């Protein structure tokens, strides 16, 4: 409940700021490039999967204007991202915010890779124990004179000729 009021407050304040023309503004309006650098990291629900800086719909044009207005009013990049996320939902952000369940998106891939790597390496290690198994010894023995090993064949060839 608390959070809701906070959101509400923030939005009312922002609305006031955005609606009332800034009087004491002396900074120059932001350039298109400044707006784009933020818009690049945002997505609007109207054109899904197309970043805001290249989306051609009227809705996106308005969003970019909003970014431009907010930059002109001196909001920081982070404040603008937060405002858009509150107003339109987390999906406007190019990456899920690092909260709650969203942590999974960042944790699962590295964890899966690590587990997989661990399994692969422990498997390979088990197989490499110095062993008295005659078969393995034989295999190593064979390797030395292995004719079908292309690499060593090449090496020998080169050694002889060069």
């Amino acid at each position: 409940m608390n959070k809701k009021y906070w959101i509400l407050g923030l939005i009312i304040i922002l609305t006031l700021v955005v609606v009332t023309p800034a009087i004491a503004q002396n900074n120059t309006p932001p350039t298109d490039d400044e707006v784009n650098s933020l818009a690049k990291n945002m997505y609007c629900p109207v054109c899904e999967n197309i970043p805001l800086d290249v989306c051609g719909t009227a809705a996106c044009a308005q969003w970019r204007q909003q970014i431009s207005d907010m930059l002109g009013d001196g909001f920081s990049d982070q404040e603008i991202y937060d405002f858009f996320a509150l107003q339109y939902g987390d999906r406007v952000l190019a990456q899920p915010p690092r909260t709650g369940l969203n942590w999974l998106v960042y944790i699962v891939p590295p964890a899966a890779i690590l587990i997989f790597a661990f399994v692969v390496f422990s498997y390979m290690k088990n197989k490499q124990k110095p062993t008295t198994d005659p078969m393995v010894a034989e295999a190593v023995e064979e390797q030395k004179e292995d004719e079908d090993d292309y690499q060593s064949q090449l090496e020998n060839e080169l050694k002889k000729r060069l």
Partner: protein
Amino acid sequence: MTVNIGYGALVLTFIVSLYAIGAAIYGERNKKPRWVDSARNAMVLIFPLLTISAGALILLLVNNDFQVEYVASVTSRSMPTYLRVTALWGGQPGSLLFWSWLMAGFASAVTLRKWDRDREFLPWVIVVTLATLVFFLLLVVFYENPFVRMWQTPVGSVLTQIFQPTGSIPYVPGDGRGLNPLLRHPGMIIHPPLLYLGFVAFVIPFAFAIAALITGRTDDRWIRITRRWTLWAWLFLSLGLILGGRWAYDVLGWGGYWAWDPVEISALLPWLAATPFLHSVMIQEKRGMLKHWNMLLIIFTYDLMIFGTFLTRSGVLSSVHSFAQSAIGPLFFAFIGVTLIVSLYLLSRRWDELKAEAQFTSWLSRESLFMINNLLFVGILVVCFWGMIFPLISEIFTGQKVTVGPVFYENATGPLWLALLFLMGVAPLSAWRASTAKSLGRNLWKPAVISFLVPIILLLTGMISMAAILTFWMGAFVFSVTLYEFYKGAMARHKRAGENFFVALWTLMGRNRRRYGGYIIHLGVIFMAVGIIGLEVFQTETQGSLALGESLELGPYTMVYTSLSEFDTDDNRNVARAVVEVYEGDEFLTELYPRKDFFYESQQPMTIPGVRSTMEDDFYVIMADWKPITTKNATFKVYHNPLVNWLWVGSIIFILGTFVAAWPEKEDSPKRAKKSVSASEKV
């Protein structure tokens, strides 16, 4: 008439396929080879049958037969003939028929091979291949029929049915709705067919794998048979992905070739499972290891392929690539579920019989390094799969939609790609079975020293991006290793046989196609990596609203906006075309014509960039949608994309290498056959 022939052939194929499945199973169970032969003959028949059906649809499309609903929905009178033909895959029903047709081609082709040594596989290959085909035909015949016609009833309403309802008259609209403008591009003419070819061709190795699981013939025979099929499938899939990227770069107007859109990822996933498969099958061939793993990889490749098709066609994911939502989603889901569970079940049933025949003997052996290669590829696969599927999970548990954008994928897969690049340099030099650090070092030190010059030079020239320096370094390393391999091989032949060096190089490659084809692919990958780094790390962009005569600067270039013209074309487009002059310093380089097309039929705009492309960099100009274009003022978005052409050049090398590796030759050379015999004797 054409409709009846096309639809008739379609239904007949469906029935013939069902018969072949039944006959194959019956013949196999009751030891009646004549039934299996009959099934085989039926399977040869399906390609010609579906050719009739697809041909009929093409005829309808070319002849503007707008009574057919599909024709009216994807073509219009103003479209040129070649686009009418490509409209075959411009909509859901047509593309499903097209897909089935391609698959039938592979199915029929595989039955024509010599089966003497592999009779026991035959019935099950027929069953698996045709079961997949029957599924797609089921969708075409019952749910997304491209031959449905429109009829007007006496009360005036329009019905869509194959056959004429009593009392109705044919309803023929004056013109069709036309093809989606995004699909009216040369890249789009070949991108979908190649991607489809890549997808459907993987059905063949999958069918052999399943046949091996069912029959219990668990040696590497299925891999040897399907080696070439797999390479061709991989070739088509790679080509499809690359052309898709090129199409995006030329048409979508966002300055890049890959947006990490969920549907793009879903097409990449089978490739990410197939590439490690291509590598790890070599371990099974040489060493008889990783049998489970290869089975898993081919099962994943197949089901990811179906899954990708499902995602684009079911409305589960929304994307620029999606087809309109339709009722076929649940069927696709059921099919994926059944194939995945059945194949995993078959695998687990044979689990203990698929024991490795040999063991890892060295950390640095070729097979160990291939295992790490597999680990990295599957790592990338996990990242991509998870990123793609996560928004669905999030929506289920929190009700909030989230976006997983390019930054996530780039950060997560970047280091893995780099590690793969490094492995590409080391693995070809290590030996099977056992490699010591010493022997590997002896092979590696020369190329390594040479490649070390690259980061030093880059640092001296003031490059600060770590990602770029590492990639270029690794690229140089792999490049020198690979060239050194070619040199060593050719020199050896040259000295021994006294052949001219280049003749020696040629015969060397001819004798070891897979090996040297693979090396050429690796060289292509290095070029591609250079292009990718150029775009990812060094791309710069700017934007500005210009009046006539005003200019915009970016990198070493200046563009001047000189004029704008607006006109209508014959094929129902409104074109706004700007003329832009590009200068480097004071030197005039070229004129570019970025334009914006508006398609009246579909009410869709399309942005086509003007690009000046050299090996050094691309200067890429689009008329942005930011503000309305007037004759006085236009907003331009300009990208400077260094090195991006290396990506396309690399792609060509990559594809050539795949050709070298995949080109047909005699199935097994006598020498290798002898070797495999002796290998099995050892064990």
